[in-house]
């Protein structure tokens, strides 16, 4: 792995650790309102300043990171799982199963993804799980499509034919023979997708469809503070920087994994 990849892993670990140990890192509670220190610029007391209710930005960014990162990572893992299963089944069995499943996948992929995610989120009460469901509902389709394409090429390989001749059950061929082959591809795809999911999560929270106030997420902080962008620009700068940095690290990691395994991922 190249240096850039190593640096991104390091930065991601750092962000995750800081978020996990947020209570130990920040001196203030994320939702603690302090009317004596409204919109204080970054200083020694508040390294990233405070917002219009006197809440510590550093603390909110760290606590927000817990939600934002865990939603993106969980959503990526679930999408991957669903996509893997459906892709395997669709590619291996082919025929009518394949036609029906792929028609459905194409239907999902024919929607603009953010618009579809918004459409799904408004059907449910706003909250963390809603965002996760919206991301998964849109995300699994691209995993399924790529895995299915890959399985189609593997299906004709001689070792699968051999396994079938030896009397392996379909289940055994699917999970013992085909699935392990898909792992590098899955790893690369997940790496490349998480960065996008961080942004989708932030966008949905920014639109007010995610975790509700006072709970901090990066997207909702930008939405709440954008009215004060002239008087307190740091309140918008910090959460946005975290979104960009986290997403950037995941994207670089994804690119590195892709180059390492020499896999071409389209879509």
């Amino acid at each position: 792995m190249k240096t850039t990849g190593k640096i991104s892993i390091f930065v991601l670990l750092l962000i995750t650790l800081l978020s996990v140990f947020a209570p130990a890192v920040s001196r203030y509670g994320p939702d603690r309102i302090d009317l004596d220190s409204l919109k204080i610029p970054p200083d020694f007391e508040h390294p990233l300043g405070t917002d219009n209710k006197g809440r510590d930005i550093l603390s909110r960014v760290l606590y927000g990171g817990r939600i934002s990162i865990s939603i993106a990572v969980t959503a990526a893992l679930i999408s991957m799982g669903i996509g893997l299963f459906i892709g395997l089944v669709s590619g291996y069995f082919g025929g009518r199963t394949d036609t029906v499943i792929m028609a459905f996948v194409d239907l999902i992929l024919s929607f603009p993804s953010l618009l579809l995610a918004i459409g799904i989120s408004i059907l449910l009460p706003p909250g963390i799980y809603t965002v996760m469901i919206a991301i998964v509902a849109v995300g699994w389709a691209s995993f399924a499509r790529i895995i299915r394409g890959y399985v189609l090429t593997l299906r004709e390989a001689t070792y699968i034919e051999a396994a079938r001749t030896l009397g392996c059950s379909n289940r055994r061929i699917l999970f013992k023979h085909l699935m392990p082959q898909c792992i590098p591809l899955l790893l690369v795809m997940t790496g490349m997708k998480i960065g996008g999911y961080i942004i989708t999560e932030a966008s949905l929270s920014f639109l007010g469809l995610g975790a509700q106030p006072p709970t901090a997420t990066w997207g909702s902080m930008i939405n709440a503070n954008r009215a004060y962008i002239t008087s307190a620009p740091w309140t918008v700068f910090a959460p946005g920087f975290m979104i960009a940095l986290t997403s950037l690290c995941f994207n670089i990691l994804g690119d590195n994994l892709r180059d390492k395994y020499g896999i071409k991922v389209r879509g």
Partner: protein
Amino acid sequence: MVGERAQPEVIEKIRKELGTDRNIISQYYGYIKLLLQGEFGRSYYTNRKVFDDLLLKFPNTLKLAVCAMLIAIPLGLSFGFLSAYKKDTWMDGLISAISVTGLSVPVFWSGLLIMLFLSLQLKLFPPSGTGDIRFLILPSITLSLPAIAAISRVTRTSLMEIFDMPFVTTAKAKGLPESKINGIHVFKNALIPIITVIGLDFGSYLNGAVLTETIFGWDGIGRFTMQGIIMRDYPVIMGCVIVGTMIFVAINLIVDIMYHYLDPRIRLN
């Protein structure tokens, strides 16, 4: 709509007016019937026809999408070209770094920063609103950033794939000038993935760049969608999503048809 402490009779009356007192199947049936007549119903709040509002706002969205693409396509292509031809030099490294960053920065944040510096501090452009070209510049720049990144990345990959093709070696062996090889043989064959990305981006901008339009107060379909979401104005949201998807599918269809002209091996059926 009527507040938290409304009289039950008032609520009942409004439910009757909006038709939300009927059971869900008959509501759905009613909506499908409207759709087949080319209608999307009326907004719960303004009581205006959703279709009329969409028609009114579409030109603004179109302007924004076209402007963003006018910035993104030349920049994205030239970045991609530079980086592919100067592969593994500092130039390639720099462009790759810029484009991966472009993909990672959320537009609602870059938009706010652009607004803060160019409009609120330097006072070059009006911060928000709908109007002439001055209002159009900031949202177009914001919207073009991720597209520049995406186009430049796909151009680079696609060109490099073609470089290794045997027909390029043949062209070189025939002694064709470098410019002719790059301009005709390589570029034309590399175009399909590039057109795909451009089409996808353009399609999603046309159904309203929800975030960018909201931030810059640009009165297009995206902001309309957003207002619908905030007010839970379901006819508006449904209308926007349906029209948005239709536009998106139409653009994808046009792109698919273009494939045939770029590469006649791809048949139209």
